[in-house]
């Protein structure tokens, strides 16, 4: 495949992610931060995000399984997940976290559990998308091309 083909493929894949709300402008900022000095910046940050998120999700699952649920702790975890997902631009995950926190405040266990499920789902989705996206980017770079900048017309 040629570079420009790859690039087109990349754009075709990435653009809908933004339009569908998987990713938001923050991700674009990350891409902007990547340069020749930091060629793997996006990949680096994304993998950090994956690590953090998985840890948090495990903690959340564990906490919600307890007999006596510590909502404060859960709220702290969710807050953290919300923070990291927002900093990477995983919009849907972030939105789920916001809802999750509200239920935490209400101490609604059932709602929290369902929220947790939702968050996990969204996380898995965005994880897949991001992994594919990065793979595509790396392909382009490996082929000697540059990652096209996402441009949105308003």
């Amino acid at each position: 495949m040629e570079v420009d083909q790859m690039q087109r493929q990349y754009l075709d894949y990435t653009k809908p992610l933004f339009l569908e709300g998987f990713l938001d402008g923050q991700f674009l900022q990350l891409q902007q931060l990547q340069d020749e000095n930091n060629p793997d910046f996006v990949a680096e940050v994304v993998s950090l995000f994956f690590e953090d998120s998985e840890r948090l999700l495990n903690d959340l699952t564990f906490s919600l399984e307890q007999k006596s649920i510590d909502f404060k702790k859960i709220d702290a975890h969710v807050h953290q997940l919300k923070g990291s997902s927002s900093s990477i631009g995983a919009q849907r995950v972030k939105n789920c976290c916001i809802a999750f926190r509200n239920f935490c405040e209400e101490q609604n266990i059932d709602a929290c559990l369902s929220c947790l499920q939702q968050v996990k789902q969204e996380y898995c989705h965005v994880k897949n998308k991001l992994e594919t996206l990065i793979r595509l980017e790396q392909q382009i770079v490996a082929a000697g091309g540059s990652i096209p900048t996402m441009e949105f017309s308003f």
Partner: protein
Amino acid sequence: MCFPSKFPFAPVSIILLCSLSHIVRRFSASELSLNEVVALVAPMAPSRSGSDACRGGTPEFPAGLRVLVVDDDATTLRIIEQMSIRCRYRVTTCTEATVALNLLRERKGCFDVVLSDVHMPDMDGYKLLEHVGLEMDLPVIMMSGDSTTSAVMKGIRHGACDYLIKPVREEELRNIWQHVVRKIWNENKEHDNSGSMEDSDWNKRGNDDTEYTSSVADAAEVVKGPKKRSSLKEEDIELESDDPATSKKPRVVWSVELHQQFVSAVNQLGLDKAVPKRILELMNVPGLTRENVASHLQKFRLYLKRLSGVAQQQNGMLNAVPGTIESKLSATGRFDIQALAAAGHVPPETLAALHAELLGCPASNIMSTMDQATLLQASIGLKHSHAEHAVAYGQPLVKRPNIGTDFLPSVLTANDVSSGYGAWPSSNNTMGSVRPNNSVERVGTQNNNILMDILDHQQRQQPQQKQQQHHQQQQQLRQQPLIPDQSCSINVQPSCLVVPSQSSDTPQAVNSSASVNQNCSFGRNSIIDYSLLSQKSNNSVSASQFPSRDTKAQGVLYGYTTPSTCSMSSINGNFQHLQNSTLTFGAARPFPSPLPMSDRQDPYGFKSGDSFDQVCLRNIGFIGKGICIPNRFVQNEIDSSVSDFSQMKVHVDSSGNTLKEEPNFINMQKGSRPMVERYQSCDHSSVFTE
């Protein structure tokens, strides 16, 4: 969407920035194509001080800004780190607040700004914020995904310079340098407010070579303010030891002894003729520079002015604004100095005589507080002196007719004060100082017609705010003689020297000193008081605790007029106490600051949030009781740090009840400033510095 990545700084702004030599010097050279900047910056390159290992090469502000980022979220941390690198900052990251604090402590002076997350597992971000503010006095910017108003408000309350909502964008990071700049300029401005710039300019030009290269100085010419201020600031403020923004200069602690030497030197020369060089020679203190003396002299002059200048000011000039104090101050240095110089060792009678001499009025015996208060009032009234002054006077007067008798003995202890407070009829509002216009009536519960008249008069004349502020500030009745120079005719007794006795347990001592009977204008007295107070001030007095450091304004003499009935002996005795303490302007300022009040024992029950009125009232109450606030004040004075000084200004106006100006309070309260630190250092200069 495209994301521009060039520096948004215009050449002009760079020039401005460059004038902040201390900051600029630290920044590494950048290859940015702002030619003007480079041209400006280049000459500064050699001016790095070798001692500061953290300094980089040629700065190109804000490139090279040394940022410490603290966030437990690795993702966010990495992103912000990268953004900072993009902004050409020198960034250090940390995932734990405790580690960050240690880093800041170890490498003091190596950071310009701290970015911290709010929610962290090991330490709350606000706590870190407080610590940093207290220990390092760096600007701290909070970050959080929590964008609720209450969260942001909390950040502000804890002293955050800014609050960024996550996810943080690069554009926001590019702007954080403004907080560094602003902080420094504001600090410098405080100095400016406290005094004229002539001396500082003069100092600067003459002697600041060590701190600034000539090119930097030239660059600073473009923006005059910052340079002067920072220099002044460095010299005069006794703050925490490291100030990353300015080159380190050994700070001079104007201890009581040192100040006394200074005052006697000035006295010898005559205030009008006192020049730093000669003063320095006379003082003969090794290690003291002419600059130090010059800045101290400037402050001293301001202080004197404040004490005596009230009378000369029109009512209109009076206002609660800190600046007013300065305006009010008249140049009455000579006698002040003498008074001050003498204060330390002069028995009350002598002091009175001194006052008299200075003021040109015959020394009189100590009058009853009431009488004195009356006189004060009268003088104040006549003078239309600043309301503040009047207020101060009024307060004591009002309190009790029999104050005289129990005046001295009841100097106050914190309890007394509080009770005294209660004694005040309606102290809260009545005191002239407290409420500008109603206090007269109320104050006059004593049936002191004269007093009432005077108070009335004063009230009308005085700006309310000042009074209020004063009242509040002075939890203890500190009558401040302030002002009225021409009161000689009035027969106002000089306010008692409210010199807080050294021993915290002897508030009375304070009173006694205060009760120097001078017919002279209060201003003079206040000076003396001040010095006396300063002698005492050291903290042990619980009372002094009260005024807390925030009350810088306390420096103003308390021109406390004690009723003649005060027993001379007690006065003398107290006076002695006072004398022990060296004259230190700083020390004499124990004006209770609203903030500190809450921290310290608040005998009067002042809370940091207390309205000025209350403060005033309290003070008044004390006076009535013949309580000498001084202890508290003294304490504060000594402790008061620069920030207090600003308050002092306010106080002065209110005639003894130095109330901190509202703004000061706010500043204080924000807690970002370690007032405590200031206090520790008995910083006399703080008295003057604002």
